[in-house]
């Protein structure tokens, strides 16, 4: 799930951080820039792992702060295809499921990757709610939000940033994981215990 990536970046150190030591202030600035953001094809930044080198410290004409070039490693969250991850159910609708890891919410299991055969039916106890059921050997197994769901990563995509968005559309997700439940051992943990 997690990888290290080595990056190099030239950054300007804001003067309010000068009271800290150089390492701490560069680290703080890198965290402000990168933490919890997505870098295309590298993944979602979890943490700054370490700083390998810091160079520079020049103040360019016209600027009020010194510029440093830092080489550092970041911990990236980037699941690989075929990885099995345990997540919690966030939403479920006729198009599929949406799962969440707490720190990452854009995991979708579309209807065609649900265990075959399944259907989306009304819950007999709560008529207003609908949920997914897996029909296996004449038994119906529901996917409700009680326990954790294991899914296999089918694809990780990084959609390009849209130029415009409609007013009430879903907020843009820079990294989307598509998961599959269509295999032995996947789905809610209670199905297999």
């Amino acid at each position: 799930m997690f990888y290290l990536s080595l990056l190099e970046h030239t950054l300007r150190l804001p003067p309010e951080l000068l009271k800290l030591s150089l390492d701490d202030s560069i680290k703080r600035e890198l965290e402000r820039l990168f933490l919890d953001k997505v870098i295309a094809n590298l993944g979602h930044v979890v943490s700054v792992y370490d700083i390998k080198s810091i160079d520079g410290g020049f103040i360019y004409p016209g600027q009020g702060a010194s510029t440093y070039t830092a080489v550092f490693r970041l911990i990236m969250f980037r699941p690989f295809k075929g990885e099995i991850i345990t997540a919690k159910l966030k939403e479920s609708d006729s198009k599929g499921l949406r799962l969440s890891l707490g720190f990452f919410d854009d995991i979708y299991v579309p209807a065609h990757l649900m265990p075959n055969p399944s259907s989306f039916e009304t819950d007999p106890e709560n008529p207003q709610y609908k949920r997914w059921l897996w029909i296996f050997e004449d038994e119906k197994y529901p996917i409700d939000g009680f326990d954790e769901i294991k899914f296999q990563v089918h694809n990780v995509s990084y959609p390009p940033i849209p130029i415009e968005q409609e007013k009430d559309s879903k907020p843009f997700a820079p990294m989307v994981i598509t998961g599959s439940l269509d295999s032995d051992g996947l789905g809610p943990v209670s199905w297999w215990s």
Partner: protein
Amino acid sequence: SSSVSPLCVALFSISVFTGTSQGHSDCGVETFLCFFKADNYLFGSLNCFSGDENAKRIFCRQKSNDGALTNFEVLDFLRSRGATKDPTRVMNSIAPSEFKVFDYLVESACCNQTRECINEFFDKCKNYKLAPAEILNIINIRPSSVVEIDSIMEDCESRFGEGIQDLVDLVTEVLPPPPSEPKPEEGMEEDEGQGQDDEAKQGS
């Protein structure tokens, strides 16, 4: 604005070297499974997805994949920075987003693991000839039954046949169980109780 700064080009040409990504002994950090083949020093100028004006600068990646980390290593790193389960969270050294990762990891199978047991598992599973991705999956999930391990492996039947139970036994013996797993005797009763409840619910 995807222009390439000359500084990046110069650094890229200096930093090309043909190592595999094994053994980062120079950095003083032990990473276990850094034998994934590194994407060869992908270099590109990208804009970070952030709304900060100052951050819309070019940075270059020297190495996209500097080694894979098991969940345990990330948890260990966060713990060494000071993350705890304490709900008040007064520590300033960890950002809220890092705490969310910590919360997820501390409830998963890796919270009771230690470096020694992972090293031990790594040595003992060499005779099974597992792919690196499979070893990583096993360490992160800690499957306790054949059906769980079947989803991780490719061609489980043809590669192992009956020997798969030995691998499951090795996993349960070497790696500690995840926090929520009940003891076997209590587990059986609870599972059977839940099974009956589920069937009763569906029948009604």
